[in-house]
């Protein structure tokens, strides 16, 4: 009898469990369905406005297209043309040089400003606001302000150099020189986003526990040694983010160059971004400009992936 009761109890329990399991499954299925429903609007927007154009871009890169008339299929011709296009490789080289200079400048100045503000005791919020302000300004306004500083006729820099008898030097016409123009635009981009990098580093510095510095002091580490052994390794995650943002942003550098030099003088500051614009909107060669965009996209993806791999390993080692 006991055995029968036990068997019935077990059967009842298993039924309850089975029943609960089915209920759980149903609930989960309902939950997943609901979740999917909620995700659909965002998914449609994402697929329609991001993934769709990317796939469309790959298609148009294989066509001869003026942007309005029907595209004609030309296979890989645009990419073959790209291989022999000196202008494209020159623009790519400028893009990489810009990226290298700006990356070092932005990360270096951002870190420097963050270290200074981290040690300051007065007017910190005000200074933070002042340094961050350029990142909030419109690039058009920045180009106008710096255009006025660099102008070879009415520029502040030109006036200053002329007053000390150096009017004919490179400082008198920064954007007119083959090398100085590239450096001149880089300085503007560094200045514009140094405050942004500063915020990233400042957040990283605030998250380093004070106890570690105290322990390091007790062990005799101070000044640059403390920075090398404590601050810099523990800032690794912030550095990774700063480098990633700078890399991705500067590989597609466009607006500052377009507004300040238009890619000149004589293509000295032409980036892949400005070349894509010119190929499409000035020369009406949309198919080829999309092929240039595809190569730029692949390049950015590759560089960012390499950077992520490198910094993830370093972060892991640091922690």
């Amino acid at each position, binding site marked *: 009898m006991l055995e029968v009761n036990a068997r019935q109890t077990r059967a009842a329990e298993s039924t309850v469990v089975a029943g609960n399991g089915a209920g759980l499954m149903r609930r989960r299925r309902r939950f997943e369905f609901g979740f999917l429903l909620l995700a659909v609007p965002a998914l449609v927007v994402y697929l329609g406005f991001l993934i769709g154009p990317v796939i469309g871009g790959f298609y148009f890169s294989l066509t*001869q297209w*003026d*942007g*309005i*008339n029907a595209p*004609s299929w030309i296979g890989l011709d645009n990419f073959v043309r790209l291989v022999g296009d000196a202008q494209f490789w020159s623009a790519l080289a400028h893009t990489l040089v810009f990226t290298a200079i700006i990356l070092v400048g932005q990360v270096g100045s951002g870190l420097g400003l963050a270290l200074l503000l981290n040690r300051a005791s007065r007017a910190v919020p005000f200074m933070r606001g002042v340094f961050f302000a350029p990142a909030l300004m419109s690039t058009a306004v920045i180009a106008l302000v710096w*255009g006025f500083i*660099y*102008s*070879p*006729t*009415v520029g502040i820099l*030109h006036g200053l150099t002329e007053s000390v008898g150096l009017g004919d030097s490179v400082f*008198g*016409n*920064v*954007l*007119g020189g*083959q090398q100085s*123009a590239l450096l001149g635009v880089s300085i503007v981009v560094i200045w514009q986003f140094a405050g942004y990098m500063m915020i990233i580093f400042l957040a990283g510095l605030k998250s380093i526990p004070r106890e570690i510095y105290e322990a390091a002091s007790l062990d005799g580490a101070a000044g640059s040694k403390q920075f090398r052994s404590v601050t810099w390794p523990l800032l690794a995650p912030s550095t990774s983010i700063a480098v990633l943002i700078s890399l991705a942003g500067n590989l597609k550098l466009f607006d500052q160059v377009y507004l300040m*030099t*238009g890619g*000149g*003088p*004589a*293509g*000295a500051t032409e980036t892949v971004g400005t070349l894509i614009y*010119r190929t499409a*909107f*000035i*020369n*009406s*060669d949309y198919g080829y400009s999309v092929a240039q965009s595809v190569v730029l996209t692949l390049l950015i993806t590759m560089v960012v992936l390499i950077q992520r791999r490198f910094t993830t390993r370093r972060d892991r080692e640091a922690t």
Partner: protein
Amino acid sequence: MRRRRLLVAATTAMLLVAGLTACSSSGSSGATTIKVLGYQPIPQKILDDFKTKSGITVKADIHNGGDITQVLQSRVAARSDVDVLNLTGGAQFNKYATAGTFVDLTDNKLLKNVKEIGVRPGIVKGKSYGFSMTSYVTGVFYNKDIFQKLGLSVPANWDELMADAAKIKASGTAPFVFTAADGWTNQYFYHNAIAIWAQKHPDFIKKVSTGDESWKQNKLFTSQVQKFQDIVKSGYLIPGAQSMKGEDGQAQFAAGKAAMYLMGTWTLSSLKPSGFQLGMFPLPINDPGQPTAVASSLSDNMYAIASWSKKKEAAEKFLAYMATEKVATEYSNANKVASTIKGVTATFSPYQADSDKMTADAAPYPTRLGPSVDGSGPNLLGDMVAGVSDAEKVIADFQALQDQDNKTNYYTPN
């Protein structure tokens, strides 16, 4: 139960949205409204008067800051809500015309009010798709006071121009404005060379598009590029030319910092000479002993009707109104440019006397150049100023742009 409620709520929301959308599209029912997308401002008085006379409201969406190319591209591609299009002539107009963007106006009587110079750029594949409201001549604006002070006369040939430039430079003033940062402005150093050659060799533009001829065979163009190299080598360009923007160059000329400024007459609407007399003469590309070269002209302020417009009749009425003598005069005076509408003799600038004289025999600049030659070609002179190119390379690069255009389906003469 809950699901049913959800369904009811969703259906109600959809009906509400649909209802609101329907209301918004029929909200302005009654009066007709047409939309103009373009770059040349239309005086509000013209639009108001048109509304009074026809009952049609015109909303003008004007982008005169240089971004009309991009705006137009996206609006035309999307067949957006626009009825009248105002765009530049040449490669851009031809591209849209061949894509069926415009209504065929070939037999429309409004074109009878437009001079030949305004009708010609609107003809693509034998049909008229639009017309230009204004026309311009290009040449050399000069500071008469500087010329007078130095005892210089208007040059009748290239050697005289160079002799004048040498004297101006010696006096401490820059002879020529050059604004490489806005590449398109460079073309006025060869503009009339291309126009005169095309006038004398009507098949050249066609032949160069098929590869039967090359830019090297255009003797006027090649010689002009060589002459420009001489200008660069002689140091006749304004200091800072290689990074100067168009508006800065104009300001430098207006301030008397340079004696000559190569540009088209559209510049009269914004050029304000600071206390000196302004004159204009055609760029004398000819050698001594040859007849003085004429200026080049262009009419590229095109108006057309969008082929997908649901208010074509109202759009046609508006263009017909614009093409009347009275309205075109107002338009011309407001924009300070010469009109292509018959009977209009607008006095739009105190400095137009010289350019008016040049208009009659000016050679029309061809409207069938390839988009790259037209768009990127002028930048090549800037390369010379930056010291990274020479005349020979510029001509070769110009031909390379042509070769590239020839691989595309850009519209060329039949």
